[in-house]
Structure formats: structure tokens, C-alpha cells
């Protein structure tokens, strides 16, 4: 309790002098969760069984699509993903390091945005909408390669300001309901919210198959859905605010492993 008070006082102090700790070297801050559970932990036995089924997990349909797209060389003069990157299995571990700072773009990019970059600059495709089937399938297939690996995002001088922004977002009240992420996902994780059990809000299963969507959706879709739930204006897909939050969430889920494609209610 005391430490919470001190932290909130520090935060207040930071705000009051409008200084954001952007230039400071990263200190490893304390994690607020004492026990970390994946979203899978809060699902019903049926949903858990569906996710763990190596055939019937419907998210694998998107993985299959992604694998086809990975080696698709049907367009003349356009190298396939496989031509530069080799077999997709060599992407193992890559997804755990995203979001990452892209020096050439001078901003934080998540994996979907990196794939978009690659498609536009190297394959000369037109940019696709963030939540398009192709980007979703490719992202799912690439993240799936890291299944079972823990998150490993880098917190350094360049990514730290984004981490701070993501953290501020997580603990900031918003929307008509005036709720912050932590209210549901830290204070009340495990409790019921209408018919659903609140999770700790980790992104380790995304892109995930949500039974409600009857399809695979990105983490940003999930975040937009959360925002709508508390009657806040959602940001666009791929918004910088969400990518920063994604970095914070990846850091926050450091003890968890990638589950993509997860099945969620």
C-alpha cells in the first residue's frame, strides 16, 4: 500500500512538472502482478481443449493460409517471403522480440507493420489494411513459429519512451465508464464480467481465434474491442498508442510463452 502511494505520488509529481522520463536510461520497474496467468487459464475446459488440439484449433486455418502466402511466388518479378527469409521455421523467436524500434522508420513497429513494410518496400505491393486477411494470416503464421517461447522485448534508450507511453496508457482512466486497463485486468482478473471471466489482459495468444468473432483477429482488434467496452473512442488499427501499449504488454507478459493461435471466448 505504501509503495502504491509512493508510486502514485511520483507519477503525480512527474505529471505536475510535465516531465516524462523519456531520456532516462531504462530502469527495470517492478511488475504489479505477483502471479502471471495466460488468458488460457481463464477459459472454459472446452475452449482450452480446442486451443490445445493440434488439428481442430481453427486458428490453424489462418496459419495454413500464412504458410501458403509465405512461399507464394505467383506474381512475376516479386520475391516471395521465402526467397529472402528462407523457410518460415527460421522465423522462430522473431515474434518474441516485437514490437521493436525500426531505425529506418524512426519509430516503434510491431510485427504486422514490419510485414507490411516488407511487402511494400521489397515486394512492391500496395499497402494493405491492417486487419486484412493477408496481413493477418502472415502475422499469425510468423508468430506461430515462436509458439512456446517467452517474450523477449528490448527495453533500451530508444524503446523506453514507448514503454512509458504504453504503461501510462494502461493505468490511465478513459471512456464514459472511466476505467483503466488495470481496473479489470489487475484488480479483478479472474472475476466475472457478465458472462465472461476477466483475464490478466496479456497479448501472448494474439493473433487469436475468438469464438465471438468466429475468426482470427489481431491484438489491436482486441484492444479496440476493450475500448468500445468501456465506451472509449478506439484508436485506429496500427495506431502508435496501441503499438506502445503492445510493447508494455509484451514486457508485462515476460514470464508467459507465445500461444498463437490461441482460442479465446
Amino acid at each position: 500500500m505504501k509503495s502504491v502511494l509512493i508510486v502514485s505520488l511520483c507519477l503525480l509529481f512527474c505529471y505536475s512538472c510535465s516531465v516524462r522520463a523519456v531520456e532516462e536510461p531504462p530502469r527495470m520497474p517492478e511488475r504489479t502482478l505477483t502471479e502471471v496467468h495466460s488468458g488460457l487459464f481463464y477459459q472454459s475446459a472446452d475452449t482450452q481443449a480446442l486451443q490445445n488440439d493440434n488439428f481442430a484449433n481453427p486458428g490453424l486455418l489462418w496459419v495454413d493460409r500464412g504458410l501458403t502466402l509465405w512461399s507464394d511466388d505467383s506474381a512475376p518479378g516479386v520475391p516471395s517471403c521465402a526467397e529472402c527469409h528462407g523457410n518460415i521455421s527460421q522465423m522462430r523467436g522473431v515474434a518474441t522480440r516485437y514490437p521493436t524500434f525500426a531505425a529506418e522508420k524512426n519509430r516503434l513497429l510491431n510485427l504486422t507493420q514490419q510485414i507490411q513494410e516488407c511487402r511494400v518496400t521489397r515486394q512492391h505491393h500496395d499497402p494493405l489494411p491492417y486487419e486484412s486477411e493477408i496481413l493477418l494470416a502472415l502475422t499469425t503464421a510468423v508468430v506461430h513459429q515462436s509458439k512456446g517461447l517467452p517474450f523477449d522485448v528490448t527495453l533500451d534508450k530508444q524503446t523506453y519512451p514507448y514503454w512509458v507511453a504504453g504503461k501510462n496508457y494502461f493505468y490511465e482512466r478513459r471512456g464514459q465508464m472511466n476505467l483503466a486497463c488495470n481496473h479489470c485486468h489487475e484488480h479483478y482478473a479472474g472475476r466475472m464480467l457478465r458472462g465472461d471471466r476477466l483475464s490478466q489482459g496479456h497479448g501472448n495468444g494474439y493473433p487469436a481465434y475468438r469464438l465471438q468473432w468466429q475468426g482470427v483477429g489481431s491484438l489491436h482488434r482486441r484492444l479496440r474491442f476493450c475500448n468500445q467496452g468501456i465506451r472509449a473512442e478506439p484508436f485506429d488499427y496500427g495506431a502508435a498508442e496501441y503499438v506502445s501499449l503492445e510493447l508494455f504488454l509484451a514486457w508485462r507478459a515476460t514470464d508467459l510463452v507465445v500461444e498463437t493461435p490461441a482460442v479465446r471466448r
Partner: protein
Amino acid sequence: MTNARIAIPSPIKSGDVIEIKTLITHPMETGLRYDSMGQVIPRNIITQFECRCGPDLVFKALLNRGIAANPYLSFFFEVVSNCTLEFTWQGDKNFYLREVREIRIDR
């Protein structure tokens, strides 16, 4: 973009009863929902699934609305000889997908 997953166990001995599992991407739109403009979203479902071993019918299913998206079907099949299994899904809007798998009896 439509794709299907088909699982056939292996190895197979003659006389084995094997479980064949299929999964396919499809929205299975019921035709009972309305869009934001108040218009009925037309029905778009898979209406029929068939699995044939040459000319012989192995399994057939007539699907109706009310089945969730990306339908999963599994059935059992007694293997007596090597054969080519042909899977077809048909549905609204001239939906058609065909997949072929070889069944080999291992000695």
C-alpha cells in the same frame, strides 16, 4: 480465400477403422441477421459435404444455418484397400472446394 484442413491418421492397417477430421474456413452466415443499414445479410452457408472413395460414398452431410463458422466435421471410415479420397464442400454463392487425399495401407 478458402482453405481446408484434413487429418488422416497414419500408419493404417487393412481393416482399421480410422477417424477422418476436416476443418474449413467459411463464414456460415445464417441469413437471419441484419446489417447496420437494416438490410438482411443474405444467407451464405455450406449446404453439403461429401467424401467419396472413387465412386463410393463414404460420408455425406447436409448442413443448415445455425452451424458456427469454420465448420469442423469428423467421421469414421473402415479401410479395406488403398484408395483416393475426394472431399467436396458445396454451398451458397456457388461455393465449391475440392480436396484429394491418398490412403495407403502400411504393411
